[in-house]
Every structure is written in structure tokens, then in C-alpha cells.
């Protein structure tokens, strides 16, 4: 009986009752209570589930995941950018705080400058050097406009930057003339490396490097110190206008040259401490006369 009852119930649950079996099922004592349970089960139905909404939600979440990974990348980039900006500003601040020293000489004046490492610079007339005092320990680097003699202590690479190129040494004595009208380097001790327009030239002791009118020439000097330190300028085969430009570094004068040929070549020297003497040194070999009229010197052919 029990197994038959169970059988009927199972078939009922599976909707597999035949008509006869259904009649038998309905005659069961507990038929009403089974029906009641089955009927009332529907009260516990799960909440409505909207498939379309669900899919939309899932798809938007998939998109969010993708875009959030982009967001992370953007945040990462932003962080890197921020760090760079901070680092750059710190660098800038230090640079502003950096102790750039400038030394400038007037016409006819010279100056001796001691660098932080005991190297010395003898600055010729009408010249300028600048360097970063605070960075000197890590970088011996200075800029020159004009002419100067360097006595460099041994140590790290010492660099002189000019508008023509740079001169690098480790420890030596040398003179650099970087005037608007010409570039000359003379090595008095050790060796010097010159970089001009990506080409490298090496000077040994007593080598004299000249760059004039885009032509490079090398010669030997007999002197152990530059001419200007002996209060004179030595010129070899230099055009008169160049000579006069050089002259004006040491004497505060203007030249009137309308009656002379300034392209004539001059070889010789002039002193720095005697205007008349110096003018004679130039005019006599060239067969010229001079006339001093206050600040103005008029040159004339004889």
C-alpha cells in the first residue's frame, strides 16, 4: 500500500498519472494536503527575474572592467607625469639656486680668477668667463668669450666652451683666444683636445691651433706663456682690420681707416701699456701714419 502510494505520488509529481491512477491518487487520505502543499508552494515563487536587464547589467559590467583597466593605465600615466613634473621642478629650483659666477674684464684690464679646485684663469682684456660654482665638484665646465690663459689642476675633465667649439683637458696650461674675429688655442703643458664642428684636434706642448676665416692651421710657439700675459700681442700674417680689432681689446680707442687698405697683412707685435708705442709698431711696418684725436685714431697712408 505504502509503495503503491509512493508510486502514485511520484507519478503525480512527474505528471505521469494515467486516468485510472489519477482516480486512485484522488482517493488517497492525504490527497488534499498534497494538493495544498503543491498549490501553496507557488507562494514561495522566486522574485521576478528580467533576463534582458540582467544581460544589460552584465554587458555594462564587462565594459566597466575594460574601461577601468584603461583608467588604471591613465592613473599610472598621471602618476608618472606628476613625478616627472616634481622632479623637473626640483631640478629647476636647484638650478636657480645654483651659484653661477661671471667674471668680465673691461678693455685694457686683466684679471686672475681662482677656481674652486685651485685652477687659475688669467682673463685677458675685454673677456668674460662664467661657470657654475656649486656644480664645480662634479663638472669642471666653464664658458669663455674672449681670451684667457688656463692653468688647470689635475683632476676630472676640464672643459672650456666657446662659440667655436670646446676645449677639453685633464690638467695642463693653455691659452684660448675666442674672439669674434678668430679662434686660437695654444698648449703650453700637457695636451689639449679641441672639438670644433664634430672634429677633434689634439694639441701637444707648444702647439698653436688657429681657426681663421674657416681655415684651420697649426704651428709651434717658442713661448711658455701667452703674449698678452707679457703685455703684448703677437700677430702673424693678420689682416689690418683684425689687428685693429685685437688692438681695441687693449686700448679704448676707435680707428678711422677710410683712407687705408685694411686687408693688408701684418706680422709683428704691439705692447698693451703704451698707446703711442703700440701704434708705431703697427703703422711703421705698413708705411702708415697715425693721428690721435681724443678717442679717435686716424690712420693714413704716407
Amino acid at each position: 500500500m505504502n509503495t503503491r502510494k509512493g508510486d502514485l505520488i511520484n507519478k503525480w509529481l512527474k505528471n505521469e498519472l494515467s486516468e485510472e491512477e489519477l482516480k486512485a491518487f484522488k482517493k488517497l487520505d492525504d490527497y488534499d494536503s498534497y494538493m495544498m502543499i503543491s498549490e501553496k508552494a507557488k507562494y514561495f515563487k522566486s522574485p521576478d527575474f528580467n533576463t534582458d536587464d540582467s544581460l544589460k547589467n552584465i554587458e555594462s559590467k564587462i565594459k566597466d572592467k575594460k574601461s577601468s583597466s584603461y583608467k588604471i593605465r591613465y592613473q599610472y600615466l598621471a602618476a608618472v607625469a606628476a613625478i616627472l613634473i616634481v622632479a623637473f621642478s626640483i631640478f629647476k629650483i636647484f638650478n636657480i639656486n645654483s651659484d653661477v659666477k661671471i667674471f668680465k674684464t673691461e678693455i685694457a684690464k686683466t684679471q686672475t680668477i681662482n677656481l674652486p679646485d685651485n685652477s687659475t684663469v688669467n682673463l685677458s682684456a675685454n673677456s668674460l668667463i662664467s661657470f657654475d660654482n656649486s656644480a664645480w665638484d662634479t663638472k669642471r665646465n666653464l664658458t669663455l668669450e674672449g681670451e684667457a690663459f688656463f692653468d688647470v689642476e689635475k683632476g676630472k675633465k676640464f672643459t672650456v666652451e666657446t662659440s667655436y667649439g670646446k676645449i677639453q683637458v685633464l690638467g695642463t696650461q693653455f691659452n684660448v683666444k675666442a674672439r669674434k674675429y678668430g679662434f686660437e688655442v695654444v698648449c703650453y703643458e700637457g695636451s689639449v683636445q679641441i672639438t670644433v664642428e664634430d672634429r677633434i684636434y689634439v694639441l701637444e706642448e707648444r702647439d698653436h691651433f688657429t681657426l681663421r676665416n674657416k681655415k684651420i692651421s697649426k704651428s709651434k710657439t717658442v713661448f711658455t706663456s701667452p703674449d698678452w700675459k707679457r703685455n703684448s700681442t703677437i700677430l702673424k700674417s693678420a689682416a689690418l682690420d683684425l689687428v685693429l680689432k685685437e688692438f681695441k681689446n687693449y686700448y679704448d680707442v676707435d680707428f678711422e681707416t677710410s683712407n687705408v687698405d685694411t686687408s693688408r697683412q701684418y706680422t709683428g707685435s704691439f705692447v698693451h701699456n703704451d698707446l703711442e708705442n703700440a701704434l708705431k709698431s703697427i703703422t711703421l711696418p705698413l708705411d702708415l701714419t697715425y693721428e690721435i684725436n681724443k678717442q679717435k685714431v686716424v690712420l693714413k697712408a704716407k
Partner: protein
Amino acid sequence: MKESHSLVENCCEKSVFSKLHQRYAKDLHDFIYYKFGEEHNPKDKVQEAFLKLWENCKKIVPEKAKSYLFSVANNTTLNVIKHKKVVLNYELNYKQNNSNNQDPQFVLEEKEYLDKYQKAISNLTEEKRAAFLLNRVEGKKHREIAEILGISKKAVEKRIYTALEQLRKEIEGI
């Protein structure tokens, strides 16, 4: 060879994915609801399962997607609840049209009965509750329930039957 096959036939294809969702999302929701109740938000579990399917879509062929979805939803819910008592809510106004003019006595009796029913349902095991309600409420065939629960048809039959008997005994206080 097997890999090349699965590359073509994986669930990453959007049409495949939404078809799987269309077919299984509601069953998945109901399964989680009847088994674990509403407290752990079956709708969220459905989303989680499908998102996980999407993440692993390259590894899962559509034929395996169903069992994957159900086991993921089942496991994530199990991880949260540790066999906590499940109380399913009922709606007294389930058949509003028919019960518009119910007298208070009837409503009270109905409520009493449903309260007992609710308690009895809570006392069923998760497996029995899910099988019974999927069958009685959702009208799922034994075969379908067997697939959802990953058990044999015979086991489904037994669960539903014993659930019914247990409910009757509890409700009628036998």
C-alpha cells in the same frame, strides 16, 4: 587539434554569450534563490557567474558553459554562507485577482498555513528545497532539475518526494 576547435567554439563570441545568458540566466537565478534564499542576492550571483564565464571565455566551450555557470554560482554562494538557515518569503497576495474579497478569517488561516509552510521549507536541506521548488513552482521536469543540480533523475525523484513528505509532516504536525 582540440585547441583549435575550442578557439572557434568558445564563449567569447558575443552572440554565443548572450544566447547562453538567455538560456540559463533565469534557471541559474531560481536555482540560487531556492537553494540559498534571497539574502545573498541571487541576481548578483547570476552576474558574477556570467562575468566569470566571460573572463574565462577562451577556455570554456559552450557545451560546458552551463555546468560552469551553475558550479560557479553555487560555489561563490557557498563561500559566503555556511549553511545558514534559509527563509523564503511568500506573498500573501500571490493571486490577487482571486483573493480580492477574501474574508479576514480566511486570510488569517492562509497566513498561519503559509507561516508553517515557510518554516518547513527552511528546515529542508538545500538540495531538497531546490529540487522541490524548481519542480512545483517553476514546473521543471525531473530531467531538467537533474541537469541543473548535476545529479541523476532518480535522485531528483527521491529528493522531491521526500521533500514533499517532510513538508506535509511538518505543516500538519504529524
